[in-house]
């Protein structure tokens, strides 16, 4: 269960945990592949410190998990709790985006 009031779970589109979950929703990745994917789809460059800080928090909360690996480049995948959290976050972000769109006279969901 993801708590909405948890202050460590901000719902900002450029929030590193949210970006990581979004990236892992497309399949397991290791650190460098994650950073490259996030830069490609969000235009956000996450440094190694920021990326692993977010990975630490996500793993502690059970939203992602490491996959077995003999390499130092250990891949991670999103868990069921992580998928639920991501879906909830995306719904919330979409709702805000829709409000912004409608107040600007645009059709909700037409931003993309």
């Amino acid at each position: 269960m993801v708590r909405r009031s948890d202050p460590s779970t901000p719902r900002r589109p450029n929030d590193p945990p949210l970006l990581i979950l979004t990236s892992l929703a497309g399949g397991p990745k290791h650190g460098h592949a994650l950073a490259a994917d996030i830069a490609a789809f969000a235009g956000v460059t996450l440094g190694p410190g920021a990326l692993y800080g977010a990975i630490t928090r996500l793993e502690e909360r059970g939203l992602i998990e490491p996959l077995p690996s003999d390499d130092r480049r250990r891949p991670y995948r999103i868990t069921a709790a992580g998928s639920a959290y991501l879906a909830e976050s995306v719904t919330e972000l979409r709702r805000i985006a829709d409000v912004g769109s409608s107040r600007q006279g645009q059709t909700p969901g037409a931003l993309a």
Partner: protein
Amino acid sequence: MSDDRHGLSGLLRWYPPAWRARYGDELVALMEDSLDGGRPTARFRWSVAAAGLRQRARALDALGRRGLPADRVRDGALAVLCAWAAFVLAGGSFAKQAEHFGSSLPPSQAGLPTAAVTTVMVAAVVAAALVVLGAVAALPAFVRFLRAGGWAELRRPVLAATALSVVVAGAMVGLSGWAHSLSVAQRNGADGVYGAAFLTWAAGAAVALGLWTAVAVRAARRVHLGRRVLGLEAVLAAGVALAMTVMTAATALWWGALAVDAPWFLRGTDPGTSPSPIDPRLTLTMVVMVAATAIAVRGVARAGRSWSRLRAA
């Protein structure tokens, strides 16, 4: 396997040991991939170091929340000790900046800032005495720890702190002799070489203080303190935090009084001018004081709550 030409593994020292054991190799691999053989910039190094310090802060916070009540009391008191060490640095900076301020004010306007500075000095002496008392109270347990072979764990950090302290003390003697041959203006910024030497010495003194604080924290985490001693440490920590709060308020009062009556003193301009009273060095001093006080108050709150649980247990 990496040859670690650029010392990337060394950046892991900023992270807590448990974190390094779990994620260290992965982070080094990611840094290698990110740099692609290039040399890490200062900004890159700083960002990794800052992330490591954040992990250390998280680890400390988690330790304080998860440990046994006795451990939480001790950790709360140690948080106050660490905050006090930072406060000493800020206090030293304030003492230097407040030197000779009385000469910039007519006697009728000097009362409030003089009282503020006196309050800071008295509270500093009280807080220092409380810190010494805390060390004395823990001394028997520390001696037992040393007799049980604890010196091996402390030898390296103690030697490092001692060596740096000797260098800092020697440099202070040299600087004092040099300062006597300079005018007041030269001592206060007109002589760039002296200014750089003084800043280097101050940085060394700050690092030495940090090393001794780290030794104290390491030792305190390994000794066994009885319930009565823990209670005493919690009370002393509360006294230190109170003194820090008083000093921070008195410093703000002094700043406000000078900002109104003699802003030129704060900025080192000619008497009678009206520069902005926002001096960068004083601002930094104040920020450190406020942050250290906040950490100390939080540490006291944690120690107090845990002490109540310990007594009830």
